[in-house]
């Protein structure tokens, strides 16, 4: 055994992504650590979502590398990265509107669960491994009572929670959460933050958020992006005191440090 440090669950180096003449992500490097909530904040159009898409594998970067636990996954497409333990939730709720809540999670669990030995002829009712994983995710997020409801009948807050539950159902190691708090009221926000807190052990979480209150409450590290580039990265107190960050947020109505 070498004395090398254990590889980071997710490490991206020098990510560049252009769209025509616009550089949406400009040589961004970011690393996630196990047991840590790493927040990614920035002004609108800073390139946060694009970066998340490149990390997840939905978009190919024009330059740079992405590694999962030391393995270079830059050339891997999204499904393969997901099976390797990289989960994500979407800023705009992306669920299966016509299926039940339970089926939504079960499908997300299915890809990572090996087939049962006996022929599961009615997957919805009998595929134990994926059903168990789904129920665990629902229990974790507190929406198990909604299991049999059709998603189209849920409220916005419930759907955002389902969005996270679906991400958890695949039992990923790395979680890329894109504005999970968007549109949530105070109570729902508190519940979600408590959930994120409880997820810390064993997971590496990247949290993209606009809600500064929440970010400063829960983040262990914060990275700030402006116009596609990282302008600061560090502990919350350091970020709060950082002159560049304050300058960037001057005039932003949701900035209250």
């Amino acid at each position, binding site marked *: 055994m070498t004395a090398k440090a254990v590889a980071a669950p997710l490490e991206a180096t020098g990510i560049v992504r252009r769209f025509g003449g616009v550089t949406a992500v400009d040589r961004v490097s970011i690393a996630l650590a196990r047991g840590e909530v790493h927040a990614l904040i920035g002004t609108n159009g800073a390139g946060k979502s694009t970066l998340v898409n490149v990390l997840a594998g939905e978009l190919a970067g024009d330059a740079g590398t992405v590694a999962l636990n030391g393995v270079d996954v830059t050339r891997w497409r999204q499904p393969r990265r997901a099976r390797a333990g990289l989960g994500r939730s979407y800023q705009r709720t992306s669920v299966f*509107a016509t*299926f039940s809540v339970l089926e939504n999670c079960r499908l997300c669990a299915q890809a990572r669960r090996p087939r049962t030995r006996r022929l599961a002829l009615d997957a919805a009712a009998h595929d134990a491994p994926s059903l168990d994983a789904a129920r665990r995710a629902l229990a974790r997020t507190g929406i198990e009572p909604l299991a049999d409801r059709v998603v189209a009948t849920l409220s916005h807050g419930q759907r955002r929670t389902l969005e996270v539950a679906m991400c958890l159902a695949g039992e990923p190691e790395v979680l890329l959460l894109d504005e999970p708090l968007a549109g949530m009221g105070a109570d729902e926000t508190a519940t979600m933050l408590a959930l994120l807190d409880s997820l810390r052990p064993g997971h590496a979480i990247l949290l993209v958020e606009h809600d500064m209150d929440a970010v400063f409450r829960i983040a262990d590290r914060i990275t700030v992006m402006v116009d596609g580039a990282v302008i600061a990265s560090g502990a919350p107190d350091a970020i709060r005191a950082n002159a560049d960050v304050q300058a960037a947020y001057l005039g932003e109505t949701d900035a209250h440090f």
Partner: protein
Amino acid sequence: MSSTAPEARAAWPVIAAAIAIVAFPLFGGRFAIDLATSIIVSAIFALSLALLVGETGLVSFGHAAFLGIGAYATALLAPKAGAPSLVWLAPAVVSVTAACALVIGALAIRTRGVYFIMVTLAFSQMAYYVFHDTGIGGGSDGIYINARPTLPFVASLGDGRTFYYVAVACLFATFLLLTAIKRARFGHALAGIRVNEARMRAAGFPTYAYKLAAFTLAGALAGVAGLLWAVKDGFVNPELLAWHQSGAVLLMLIIGGLGSLRGAVVGALAFILMKEAFQSEALFGAFARHWQLPLGLAIIALVATMPRGLMGLRESWRARRRTRPGVVA
């Protein structure tokens, strides 16, 4: 995704239909049995596409290609002399058709949405021209099958009634197979791909591979229908691959109701009967020559007023009778 009780209740129409199908030859004359056989084989053709369009959401306007490839493979693989046994001929035909579906699908599935519709149409036209213009088949005249294939334990496939039952057996087998697939993990994954493919990819499903598998399976089953068609007529010609055939099978699915296997069978029955009616001189006299006009108008009217097909009508009728809120069948 419902519990077993409503499903058990829903199974009896299927059983009743199965009994009717099996009992039919006792009451029908030669013409009726021949027509019924056409309907049965068309139902298999429709079922083959049902999983691809209804479950996976891939609208292929070129499915006739695989019907034709199956039919031509039957004619071309049959030896010049002696009657081939279906025991080896059938798997051979299905393998050839599946291989073609794999190749065409590998290219077509690189596209989506409207592109996919246009590309599948184009590829089936290509197949049409291959058989129509080149020397592979007998050109636009088609080719005969030299000797009628045989099946062990079956007296003669030349007898209308016997062949009818063989076709029915294939129909039941196809229906059961697709039902099993629909309920299995694979079928659920296909449904997920239809509803939200991006999410499926985020969850770790290699969606291209799943779609290709569904496409290949659809092609292989269409090959079975093609085989039966060729054996029934003893003759194959390029019109089997015409895009009108691809349009017809899509119509069968939408008339019956997308997403429902029973709908595929019912739709095949409805479409063929409708076409027979419009072409019937007994009903329309001399105007029967222009059957495409009422058929075209009927198609427009049906798709416009019943987009969820006959099964969809039944659903909304049952939903109105039920008073429980918040439950979706």
